[in-house]
């Protein structure tokens, strides 16, 4: 099967086995094999110049081939090109019969073998449900009819308030912030029922909270990039006051 070959092939390329990509003959025949068997970008009669692996113009034919494939690494190193071509081949192979890969029993087995003790828990057992309720009482998390939902809430509380990061953060910030005066805020929703209205307001507030988190992450990304690009300069000699 191609995938296993491919894995092998990728392994070879990625392990930096330079013999493969620098052995011209092997390299060229691999390219031809990929085109003949998997990629099939050209019609059979048009593959002549590529198949002629001993010809002097082979490199030109190969460059043209990469161009025709819109390969983003056309100017890249050979390991990069081969890696990309292999990926392309896998994609074609998969697209031909996606159903045969839909549920590979092998893969499923593999994941369940990775021993996460939680995977063997019976989430529906009475024991487990009682445990969730106890935890919820302990942390004062309101109970949801679906105990798994309650568990999710418990997770959130622990992550945001009790995880090591959160505890450190709480010690750092001296300013406790101002409590939100919910009743004084216009949430811009015209809802008659007071219960529905306050639920909608809470949702809106949580949404803004999420948005703030997202914006903070964006800012963190920008700061990371700045570390690479920023180099502010000033030159007072250039300055001139106008009259």
């Amino acid at each position: 099967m191609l995938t296993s070959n491919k894995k092998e092939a990728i392994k070879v390329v990625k392990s930096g086995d330079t013999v493969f990509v620098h052995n011209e003959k092997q390299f060229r025949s691999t390219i031809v094999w990929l085109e003949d068997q998997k990629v099939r970008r050209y019609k059979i009669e048009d593959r002549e110049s590529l198949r002629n692996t001993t010809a002097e113009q082979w490199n030109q034919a190969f460059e043209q081939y990469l161009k025709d494939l819109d390969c983003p690494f056309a100017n890249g190193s050979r390991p990069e090109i081969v890696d990309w071509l292999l990926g392309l081949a896998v994609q074609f192979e998969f697209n031909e019969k996606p159903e045969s890969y839909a549920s590979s029993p092998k893969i499923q087995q593999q994941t369940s073998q990775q021993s996460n003790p939680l995977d063997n828990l019976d989430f529906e057992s009475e024991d487990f449900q009682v445990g969730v309720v106890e935890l919820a009482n302990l942390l004062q998390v309101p109970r949801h009819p679906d105990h798994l939902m309650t568990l999710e809430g418990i997770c959130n509380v622990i992550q945001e308030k009790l995880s090591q990061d959160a505890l450190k953060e709480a010690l750092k910030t001296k300013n406790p912030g101002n409590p939100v005066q919910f009743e004084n805020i216009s949430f811009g929703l015209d809802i008659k029922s007071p219960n529905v209205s306050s639920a909608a307001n809470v949702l809106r507030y949580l949404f803004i909270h999420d948005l703030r988190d997202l914006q903070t992450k964006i800012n963190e990304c920008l700061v990371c990039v700045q570390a690479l690009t920023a180099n502010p300069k000033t030159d007072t000699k250039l300055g001139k006051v106008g009259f």
Partner: protein
Amino acid sequence: MVRTYDDEMKFLERLSPCSWRIKKGFVPNMNVEGIFYVNNNLEDLMFDELRNACAQGLVGGFLPGMKQIANVAALPGIVGRSIGLPDVHSGYGFAIGNVAAFDMDDPNSIVSPGGVGFDINCGVRLLRTNLTEKDVQPFKEQLTQSMFDHIPVGVGSKGVIPITAQDLEEALEMGVDWSLREGYAWAEDKEHCEEFGRMLNADPSKVSLRAKKRGLPQLGTLGAGNHYAEIQVVDEIYDKWAANKMGIEHKGQVCIMIHSGSRGFGHQVATDALNSMDKAMKRDKIVTNDRQLACARISSTEGQDYLKGMAAAANFAWVNRASMTFLCRQAFAKQFNSTPDDLDMHVIYDVSHNIAKVEQHTVDGKLKTLLVHRKGSTRAFPPHHPLIPVDYQLTGQPVLIGGTMGTCSYILTGTEQGMVETFGSTCHGAGRALSRAKSRRNLDYTEVLERLKEQGISIRVASPKLVMEEAPESYKNVTDVVDTCHAAGISKKTVKLRPIAVIKG
């Protein structure tokens, strides 16, 4: 057609204690009605202007603001109303303080450089600090001098940030993102900028070489006219909760306001566009009431080129304000032997008050995509609008109103009513009451400077002989203007600031 003042008054009708309607027929060909907002004091100014113009037979000089608002209502494709805000006064074609929106789906709709103004993306930026007036008072003079040394001011000023032609091209395309990349701005600055400090449709190739030549040395300079950088202190907090959201905690807190635009660059972009549009108007047979209302169809090459060039100029202005922010932070950090970070010198917000933008608004119950021209008018979007920063989702967009030299400034917030009535717009400042020439004739510069001194305001100015043009007497009273916007409900008073130091051109 010359009518008497009494005849003209037949076309004007009071709508509410602080607004008047201009009916169709006030000038020929009006497609929609006009509206303007005034309180008693401002009303007198507006009607005096009309009375004088009628007496002179509407010849020569500028048209009165009301006539200009009405002429704009006669432009093709305009929807809703032509709106005059309380600080409205005569400008080139469009009055300054005029908002007009054109339907993007109407092929006849136009874009007009006169509706944006010559100083494209002129705007105001406010930085906060964690300093108090007491902290700053002993060093006020040094700090003013230091700001003056860092930020070059005046007509022909040149900036201290070295920049090549290639840098300029990139800055024009990227706006604040350029400042970020080069390290002149903080990530949080971008978040609190209108449009996130970058107009995405900017195309530097649509800008003349002449404009670029003028702009190149001017990046990071304040300019002249009514532009200034001020050290201000919080004088009054009207909405404590909203002020807290902006990081304004108490009276006496020190802020820095920067009022500047796109310098010679934007001026040249506007001039170039006016020339090319003259021809386009003849070709497309666009008729206007006033020659100064040169315009082109939005979809025409001239219209598109202007919008792309205008966006580049807008980006220039943001880079300019970002650069001056950088320089202010340096000046403060040096003086207080600290870092800008420790001084909490965050940008509260950055508004544009000379710009045209594509926005969605509800007109007659239908959602429409409009090109909104705001000339001497500030966007003021309400709470929960998707285009305002997350920090201000509950308060509404902060609106920064710069006063005149020596008078107070304000922070307002946008309201739902403003969204309905004025395409989410409000005033931009005091608005001129006397022309520059008249101010020079009537006022003496030494007196103006003396008075600032008496008020305890440090001042550094490049051309003292021009300060009377910017004296408070030359302007409408900014408090009247802001109170009118507040009373009309198109924006809400939040914070009042007063200056303790000014630098200007």
